[in-house]
């Protein structure tokens, strides 16, 4: 069996195993597994509306996943995607509500603001890592909390007068699409999915095709050899975090300009940034993998909302299945070993 086939087979088997164990859990808990999966399917694809919602959910997942994956590929662990997303969201909405501009300028400006805010938020841990060797994991965790409190404060003081949410953004800054809404019976599917896919292509291109990507990955693997080869190690660490943060900020723009159209104070994290870690890992930290994993995640998450209603099954079941799938993908060594054995037997 070729390596390529195996690479595809492993996640497929992992997903099947996850579903299998999910079934066992449902049956053991006295639920109707068939009804559960039917509800899950209907909740995701039973209706164009839900499919629209799935893609809407997939959009920030792709970007958050790319953010984590990009950093991972360059030897950094960005747990701060959540915080970068939150500040990106804020920046996008801020531009969206504060300016009166034609759409061709306003929308790109709002998106750029989100990207810049995410990049800035990631620049700090990148800089501290490059200059002071401070562990990026701690700094990004801390920056998440700082982002949460600071954005809440800005929403209260700058974007509103002591209110808990901003105004709605101007139509000229919105990613919403009447066309898509019509197509999907008013789901919140918006143009952002194209941005997400373009970013995925961009990430692939940067990492695999450009000299910068060659450098970034080299620095991630071996700083000493990269320095020896004449690469600027510090700048590359910072750049890697900045690019990662840009993706995360864009994920925030998807929420601010697409899904919600406003921003509100948050008492906790959105979770999208942390789900991004899972998406990236499930996708093997590759661009195409991230897109596929985000799609799987989005479908499961949106479909799960229908499970309590239609089948009376707690939607946490889907979280369990997602976790199991990640486990199985991570343990691909054992799955590969198994495939190897099976295919050998087959030959005999």
């Amino acid at each position: 069996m070729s390596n390529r086939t195996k690479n595809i087979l492993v996640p497929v088997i992992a997903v099947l195993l996850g579903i299998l164990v999910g079934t066992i859990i449902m049956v053991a808990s006295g639920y109707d597994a068939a009804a559960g999966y039917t509800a899950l399917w209907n909740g995701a694809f039973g209706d164009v509306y839900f499919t629209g919602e799935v893609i809407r959910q997939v959009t920030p997942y792709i970007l958050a996943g790319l953010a984590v994956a990009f950093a991972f590929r360059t030897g950094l662990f960005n747990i701060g995607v959540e915080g970068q997303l939150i500040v990106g969201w804020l920046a996008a909405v801020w531009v969206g509500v504060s300016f009166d501009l034609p759409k061709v300028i306003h929308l790109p400006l709002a998106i750029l603001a989100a990207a810049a805010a995410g990049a800035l938020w990631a620049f700090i841990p990148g800089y501290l890592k490059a200059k002071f060797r401070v562990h990026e994991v701690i700094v990004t965790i801390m920056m998440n909390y700082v982002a949460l409190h600071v954005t809440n404060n800005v929403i209260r003081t700058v974007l509103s007068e002591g209110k808990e949410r901003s105004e709605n953004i101007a139509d000229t800054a919105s990613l919403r699409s009447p066309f898509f809404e019509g197509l999907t019976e008013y789901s919140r599917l918006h143009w952002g999915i194209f941005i997400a896919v373009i970013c995925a292509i961009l990430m692939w291109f940067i990492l695999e095709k450009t000299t910068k990507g060659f450098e970034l990955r080299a620095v991630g693997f071996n700083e000493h050899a990269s320095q020896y080869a004449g690469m600027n190690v510090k700048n590359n660490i910072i750049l890697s975090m900045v690019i990662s943060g840009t993706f995360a900020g864009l994920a925030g723009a998807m929420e601010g300009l697409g899904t919600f159209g406003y921003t509100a104070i948050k008492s906790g994290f959105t979770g999208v940034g942390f789900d991004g870690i899972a998406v990236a890992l499930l996708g093997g930290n590759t661009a195409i993998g991230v897109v596929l994993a985000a799609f799987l995640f989005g479908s499961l998450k949106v479909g799960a909302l229908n499970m309590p209603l239609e089948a009376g099954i707690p939607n946490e079941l889907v979280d369990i299945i997602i976790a199991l799938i990640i486990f199985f993908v991570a343990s691909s060594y054992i799955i590969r070993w198994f495939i190897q054995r099976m295919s050998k037997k087959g030959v005999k």
Partner: protein
Amino acid sequence: ACGNNDAKKDETTGDNGKNTEETFKVAMVTDVGGIDDKSFNQSAWKGIQEFGEENGLEKGQDGYNYLQSQSDADYTTNLNSLARQDFNLVFGIGFMMAEAVNEIAGQQKDAHFGIVDSVVEQPNVASVLFKEQEASFLAGVAAGLATESNKIGFIGGMKSEVIERFEAGFLAGVKAVNADANVDVQYAEAFDKAEIGQSIASRMYSSGTDVIFHAAGATGNGLFKEARDLKMKNPSKNYWAIGVDSDQEAEGVVTIDGKKHNVIITSALKRVDVAVKDLSTKAKEGNFPGGETTVYGLAEDGVGLAKINDEVAAKADIEAKVKEFEEKIKNGDITVPGTLKDLKNFSVK
């Protein structure tokens, strides 16, 4: 604009013949808290259950139901799912859901929606507001009379209009009965961080505060924990707490030397259940107040104060005063301030 939806509705009607005319189905969408958050989700669900029971409905797709959101992004999807399942009335519980209700109501023009704690201006949405300040005013009265140190505390969850109403009313209530008392106000900036609630309570109690009121959701668990712990350690001293939304009496039980005590004086009730049930009944009877905002206060039995703990020395005094102010508020002698700005001009004469 809703050609699709109409077609779909007809189809469903044709399918099972069961429709609006026969059973009146209600449902609600909660935020991440779920229906047992010991706060307004729980209360709302109670209202829906009562409505269901009274009307012979069963929990499920064909009676009454709820959906819990796992994140802010789910509100819209959940509201929409329920509307698409032909629930006749769908509630969004909490001001955070206003935008989602607004959006879905605009799309699903045939469905009816309710929004609690916020106003959505759509012809098919009934908005529900509460005069939280009236409940917390009474809580303030209780606190002002119960305190011996004249130091009272208020723990807020996150600053918002609703919590501000609680704060303003509480401060006004204290002021009305005890001009000497000081209220120490602190916000936890979270509704789900018990440890912050506990630390704030610890700070307040150890600087001599003896009554603390919270409007902070699960953050308030920390207040109760601190009060119980201190009481257990020092049974002779007073560490009072006041609950919020529903009657939180159960959270205050401390067993000292085999004897049960309770650290909770009372709770400021916000009867989301009353409002939800009321609206559902109206809607069922064809009197759905679409496009209107209904404000539930003391007069409507929408807010109130739970019974006073027997252990409070000033119980009789409190009950009398509470009764007195209840009357005054109901008949309009007193208008309880709902914002800190109004509070400045407030005085009881």
